[in-house]
């Protein structure tokens, strides 16, 4: 116990740095995947058949294979197979590759949630907009969108919380996120080795952050309670 107290400041500092990387990946993914998912959902709902088939195949591949494999392929394929290491070396290159993999993967999941949300809005809403002379985009932004958002908040909350934890997969390409930072003390780092508790302690970070997210998303859900 005394030993842990002694190690605590060093470990926390290191875990904080790792967690910042975790948060960065989380927010970048969210920022990229939320709009990209909408574009993909429009693709899969397109009346132009080849586009909707193509989109559905992409979604199938991305959802049907492990994110870990996607990370590895996106990071290593350009350099090892094409002899063109587009990501560059170092932490920034790994972060970029991880961001691309995460954004694409999560956009595909989001797109299916959006599709459900959009298709769940009764057809009569669109028709009412049409007979009132609105354009398709006015109907989407003024009528459908908010009703869709209301519908998708609960399933999106689920995905977002999963995303927080999924960021840990990025250590497969040696991105130095929080679990990577915790694991370092097992192998030996900054004079500490063979310590497993830092790894276990990373769970506290996830738990607290997800707690905050749960409260925020719950508030959003409540805010949209003013209509049905």
């Amino acid at each position, binding site marked *: 116990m005394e030993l842990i107290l002694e190690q605590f400041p060093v470990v926390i500092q290191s875990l904080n740095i790792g967690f910042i990387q975790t948060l960065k990946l989380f927010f970048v993914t969210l920022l990229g995947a939320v709009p990209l998912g909408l574009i993909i959902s429009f693709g899969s709902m397109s009346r132009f058949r080849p586009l909707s088939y193509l989109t559905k195949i992409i979604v199938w591949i991305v959802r049907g294979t492990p994110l870990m494999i996607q990370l590895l392929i996106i990071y290593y394929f350009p350099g090892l197979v094409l002899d063109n290491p587009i990501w560059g070396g170092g932490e920034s290159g790994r972060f970029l590759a991880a961001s691309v993999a995460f954004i694409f993967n999560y956009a595909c999941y989001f797109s299916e949630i959006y599709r459900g949300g959009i298709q769940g809005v*009764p057809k*009569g*809403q669109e*028709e*009412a*907009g*049409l*007979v*009132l*002379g*609105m*354009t398709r985009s*006015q109907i989407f932004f*003024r*009528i459908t969108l*908010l*009703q869709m958002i209301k519908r998708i908040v609960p399933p999106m909350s689920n995905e977002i919380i999963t995303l927080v934890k999924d960021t840990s997969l990025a250590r497969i390409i040696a991105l130095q996120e929080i679990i990577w930072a915790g694991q370092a003390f097992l192998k030996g780092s900054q004079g500490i080795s063979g310590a497993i508790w830092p790894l276990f302690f990373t769970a506290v970070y996830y738990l607290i952050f997800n707690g905050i997210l749960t409260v925020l998303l719950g508030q959003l859900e409540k805010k949209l309670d*003013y*209509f*049905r």
Partner: protein
Amino acid sequence: MAILEVEHLNKNFERTEVLKDISFSLEKGQVLSIIGSSGSGKTTLLRCLNFLERPGGGKIRVNGETLFDAEDPSTMQESEIRKKRLHFGLVFQSFNLFPQYTALGNVMLAKELLAKAQPDYKARRKEIHSEIEKEAKSLLTQMGLEDRMENYPHQLSGGQCQRVAIARALALKPDILCFDEPTSALDPELTGEVLKVIKGLADQETTMIIVTHEMAFARDVSSQVIFMDDGRILEQGMPEQVFENPTEERTKQFLSRYTQG
């Protein structure tokens, strides 16, 4: 001159013919009721007039202007259709109010979006907004909803919702207001208040087409009645004539179900 002329309108869904050679005309200020059993094509006819369905053949003219001609593809451009829709208003059976807007917001939304397209919108923004609001409020008052303007649809009864929907359609001042079974989703107590409002519009000589199963009401309010059966207009005439002296056996059969109760 007739405000609306419909000529030889046809419509198929896959291989089923839902409308067969529909022709009729309507004078300004008149009320046309369309009666007939479910599946006879009444709703599809209204949807064709509002460009929610595209007819397979025929013509639709409003005030002499050809809005739709199956022979002429230039009448089917999306951007044009949007403007043409404004000749018609449509009140749906299930109201289709926008749940995230208040009663007032529902009535104002489309008008505001249209106003935005005006060239002087930016300069006169506030003025335009208050004009639209004033009109919307007076429409809702006319519908007896003066103390319900700030309520959301889920806080209103079915009858109140339908009256908001009527105000919303009237806000765009359509030439012809269409009703698709406006009281079919309401219980009998609430039906009365909606019918009263429609009657009030008829008294003000609003041109209307009403698809309804309320026979007594249709008889009372209409200047013209159409009986549809299996996608055809089987009988057409003054209400007294259609309701009291129907010529077709099928019409008699249909009406007898209502008189027997």
